[in-house]
């Protein structure tokens, strides 16, 4: 085995990199990933709640907030992760590449951590952009890969805890220089050599680096978060969604064209079947007289964009009661759209009590793309679960 590093082995001489710099960026990244994990789990709970703990209806903007934070944080995590990886890039070239079985295992766990982190943030962003250059179902892989990512991150923190403690305690300006030689194994390393002058960082300083990276990430957040924080829309130079450009000032995620519902939605024969102990049906002509309930509710998509809107429609709970159900019923809301997994949803508990079957949006009759002639809208509910183009309501219990 080679004892000496070969001549061609990469050497890093920049004094910018330091365990103190990495520990600070890493802490920010750890906070970001924690936020992503918690808000991600909350979003998963929107889709698969436990029956004994239905989604609350208050605050009405709950999911708007948590999912808006999830996507904004996820977008910011892409540059943050790149800066973190830049700061430890020399570690990739430690010599010898493998020193012991323990060292080999650590390097494998790091490869898993780095690759899951990169794939997780990249595919998450591509999902926001509705581009799927991969064959798997995004939601399932994103969810389970999150466990792998957070698990390998916890392991990484455990392994690096002494470095993190040193790095956070040390001053950014005079801490060690991080190169391909580990600071705690290098007797001439700044941190082991006693009191020395701080390493010279000609050009940008370490503080300047942290500030520039923070400012870059800040610009990314400010120019993209307008798709969630609606007053910031004019600043949204890099925002994927532009709510003002949607029909009736509300974007959609699935158009009538994609759903192939044009014929069924515009048919004069349309009816809403209400099934339960006392089944009945409503025709188009019945809707207007009953559409007297109004609510101001945001539509908030899993992809992070959201916008508040004024809705008018029928009270779902009234229809359920008329069919023999109660406020404790579990209700299936079914679309006439075919061949799509989200062509129905279940609603119960506080959300059922507050839900509308909307016929009007922002003062006008519902646009075809918004689910004409009738759609569900409920507070604190993931966008796609507000089923559009309804054909049937079923009281299940």
């Amino acid at each position, binding site marked *: 085995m080679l004892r000496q590093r070969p001549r061609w082995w990469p050497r890093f001489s920049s004094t910018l990199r330091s365990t103190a710099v990495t520990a600070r960026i890493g802490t920010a990244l750890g906070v970001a990933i924690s936020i992503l994990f918690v808000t991600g789990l909350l979003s998963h709970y929107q889709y698969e709640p436990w029956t004994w703990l239905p989604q609350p209806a208050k605050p009405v903007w709950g999911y708007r907030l948590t999912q808006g934070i999830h996507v904004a944080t996820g977008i910011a995590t892409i*540059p943050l992760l*790149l*800066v973190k990886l*830049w700061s430890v*890039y020399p570690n*990739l070239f430690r010599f010898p590449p493998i020193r012991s079985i323990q060292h080999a295992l650590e390097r494998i766990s790091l490869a*898993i951590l*780095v*690759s*899951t982190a*990169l*794939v997780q943030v*990249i*595919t998450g962003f591509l999902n926001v*952009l*509705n*581009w799927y250059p*991969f*064959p*798997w179902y995004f939601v*399932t*892989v994103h969810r*389970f*890969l*999150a*466990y*792998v*990512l*957070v*698990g*390998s991150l*916890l*392991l990484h923190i*455990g392994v690096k*805890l*002494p470095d993190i*403690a040193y790095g956070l305690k040390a001053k950014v300006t005079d801490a060690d220089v991080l190169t391909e030689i580990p600071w705690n194994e290098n007797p001439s390393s700044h941190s082991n050599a006693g009191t020395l002058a701080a390493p010279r960082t*000609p*050009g*940008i300083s370490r503080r*300047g680096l942290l500030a*520039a*990276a923070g*400012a*870059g*990430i800040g*610009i*990314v957040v400010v*120019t*993209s978060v307008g798709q969630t924080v609606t007053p910031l829309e004019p600043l*949204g*130079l*890099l925002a*994927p*969604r*532009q709510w*003002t450009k*949607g029909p009736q000032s509300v*974007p959609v995620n699935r158009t009538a*064209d994609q759903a192939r519902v044009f014929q069924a939605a515009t048919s004069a024969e349309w009816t809403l079947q209400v099934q339960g102990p006392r089944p009945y049906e409503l025709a188009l002509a019945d809707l207007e007289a009953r559409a007297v309930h109004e609510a101001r509710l945001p539509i908030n998509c899993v992809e992070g964009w959201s916008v508040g809107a004024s809705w008018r429609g029928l009270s779902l709970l009234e229809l359920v009661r008329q069919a023999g159900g109660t406020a404790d019923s579990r209700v299936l809301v079914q679309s006439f759209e075919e061949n799509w997994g989200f062509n129905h949803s279940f609603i119960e508990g506080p959300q059922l009590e507050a839900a509308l079957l909307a016929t009007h949006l922002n003062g006008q009759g519902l646009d075809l793309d918004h689910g004409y002639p009738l759609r569900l809208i409920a507070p604190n509910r993931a966008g796609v679960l507000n089923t559009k183009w309804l054909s049937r309501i079923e009281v299940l219990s």
Partner: protein
Amino acid sequence: MKAWRIILAIAGISLGLFGVFRLVTEIPAHNLLVLALWMLAALAIHDGVLSPAVVTVSSALRRHVPDRGRRYLQIALIMGALITVIAIPMIFLRGSQPAAKALLLRNYGANLSLLIGIIAVITLSLYAVRVARDRPPPSAHGTQTAATKE
């Protein structure tokens, strides 16, 4: 600290194995293979292309740009690069969606240029201020000596 390290390691390994178990049991083998390729490609592209490019640019800057101006150029490049990473997929995908989705409608190329332009103007102004401040006040005998000192 040792107890914490052990707790973190055990918790991390357990959670990670749980995730791997769920992936392996719920994702078809073909898709898992493609996922593994994505992960390898992400590592290879980051460690083999992107990072060496950054290192190359940094050392080129160190060799060819004087210290005083370099820091402003570095600030601009760091900020610009981090914004560009986010803008690139949107420039590429602009106009790919039905109009009603109100998705990817903006001119992201122009918007990125605008942001980079703003960053350039700000960092250039800061550099100009720095140069002006570094210049010693003209002496009574004329300004030639001040210029040669630098």
